């Protein structure tokens, strides 16, 4: 399989649009000298504004490293990463949802949202409205005053998503955000993420090891080989998006076929 990168040159000004993510010949190594481990690469990937790209692969294939490169937490050892036309810096171009909620325990649910609003430069007199609006978007109305340890793991992850949406970044990055949750909660949150991102129209990059999750969420699924991860499959997913019944999507024949194909590729790539 070939990555889309080789399809041909795209006009350079395209990659500068808000929400565009471009990885050009990116390789990343951890450590130095003989201890260095190549985690990922070389990877070339062009993500259009508004796309929902799911990076899927077995554990240790470097998919989280790719996400950290896009988030700006790491600089690539080789190649270049640009987000909205610039080298990514943490908190500047993209919002990140991590595997663990990473909420601040010394702040209430509302306080965690407020912090994000403050960092995003939202004027203080708008916080109350924006906070209520964000919590409503993730289905947590009226939880402002709760302590973060009083709510369930699934609710904590919803707060983490709401907080990330506070800045209205054109790019949203999610690193296996539902891996630690039970199956029922996971399905509900998947539906929420699908709905929320369809509405904002921003770019989403989602990392998972689950073929099922990848096909359900993505408008495009990218399968990575085992370490060092390279792109082995770049598959557009044409399942209906927006206001659709999730059960219809999951129950369809197309979903089943795509899921089987992705699952097969992931397994083959990991072998």
């Amino acid at each position, binding site marked *: 399989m070939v990555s889309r990168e080789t399809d041909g040159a795209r006009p350079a000004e395209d990659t500068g649009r808000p929400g565009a993510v471009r990885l050009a010949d990116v390789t990343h190594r951890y450590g130095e000298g003989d201890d260095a481990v190549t985690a990922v690469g070389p990877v070339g990937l062009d993500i259009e504004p508004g796309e929902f790209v799911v990076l899927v692969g077995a554990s240790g294939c470097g998919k989280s490293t790719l996400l950290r490169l896009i*988030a700006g937490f790491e600089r690539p050892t080789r190649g270049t990463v640009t987000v909205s036309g610039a080298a990514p810096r943490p*908190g500047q171009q993209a919002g990140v949802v*991590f595997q663990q909620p*990473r909420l601040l325990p*010394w702040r209430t649910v509302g306080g965690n949202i407020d912090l994000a609003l403050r960092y995003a430069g939202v004027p203080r007199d708008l916080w109350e409205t924006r906070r209520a609006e964000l919590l409503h978007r993730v289905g947590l109305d009226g939880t402002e005053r709760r302590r*973060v340890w009083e709510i369930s793991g699934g609710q904590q992850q919803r707060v983490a998503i709401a907080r*990330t949406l*506070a800045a209205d970044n054109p790019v949203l990055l999610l690193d296996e955000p539902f891996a630690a949750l039970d199956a029922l909660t996971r399905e509900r949150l998947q539906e929420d993420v699908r709905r929320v991102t369809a509405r904002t129209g921003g770019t989403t990059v989602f990392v998972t090891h689950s073929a099922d999750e990848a096909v359900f969420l993505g408008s495009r699924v990218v399968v990575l080989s085992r370490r060092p991860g390279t792109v082995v499959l770049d598959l557009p997913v044409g399942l209906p998006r927006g206001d659709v019944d999730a059960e219809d999507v999951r129950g369809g024949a197309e979903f089943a076929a795509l899921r089987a194909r992705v699952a097969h590729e992931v397994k083959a790539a990991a072998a």
Partner: protein
Amino acid sequence: MPPASAAPAALRDPVDEAEPAPRRRARSRTGGALRRLALPLGSLLLFLAVWQSVAAAGTWSETLVPPPARVWDAFVDVSTTHDGVRGYNGTYLVEHLGISLRRIALGAGLGIALGVAAGLVMGTVGWVRSLFEPWITFLRTLPPLAYFSLLIVWLGIDEEPKITLLAVAAFPPVAVATTAAVAAAPRHLQEAARALGGSRRDVVRDVVLPSALPEIFTGVRLAVGVAYSSLVAAELVNGLPGIGGMVKDAANYNNTPVVLVGIAAIGVSGLLIDGALLRLERAVVPWRGHA
């Protein structure tokens, strides 16, 4: 019957084991209250009884072991005006204590503020820590009396050396605790704050400092304890009025009852302050154990 009960094993009847849960809980609650109140009170009464009998036996002179009643009389004397004398040396006991507490508040407060500031810098900047940590460790091992003479030479015999001594004594525990806590601030939360667009300063204020608060509080309690135990040392020279000065002065005249009153006053006020700090900690750090 849960082990929390204070009832001796011999009093338990076999039916007890089959009791329904609510009653058993009620019983153990009264047992808990008994343990919390009656046992400490009992040990205090026992202590007073032993003290009284030792004093009455007359093995040692009254100067060495004054009976409880004499100490109580001394307590009343230093708290009231008697024979035209106001308290001890013209100052009531509570005033001595108040003056000393003010010295502690100023000295320990200064040491704690500097300790938190130094700990913040040392915990975040590696080379500053390497530079200063050996000095702070050295300072911490010194008993305050060791540098008190030096402080007197430098600063005279008024308030300055006393406040400075308490500040120097309180500084190291807070600095050490803050440094360790700041250096151990959870990376994943700092990263999350940066991902939300927080600056370096935002991250220190909103993540590093709050995450270090429980440890800082432990350091503060330690520092107040150290300052308290240095109080008598700080008031060795020109300490009157002041509770430590009162103890020192009374000791010069073999006035054991007043010495004991002073010691009791220092101990009780120390316990009250530690209790207040614990309460404050629970109010300020409600997430302790949840982070």
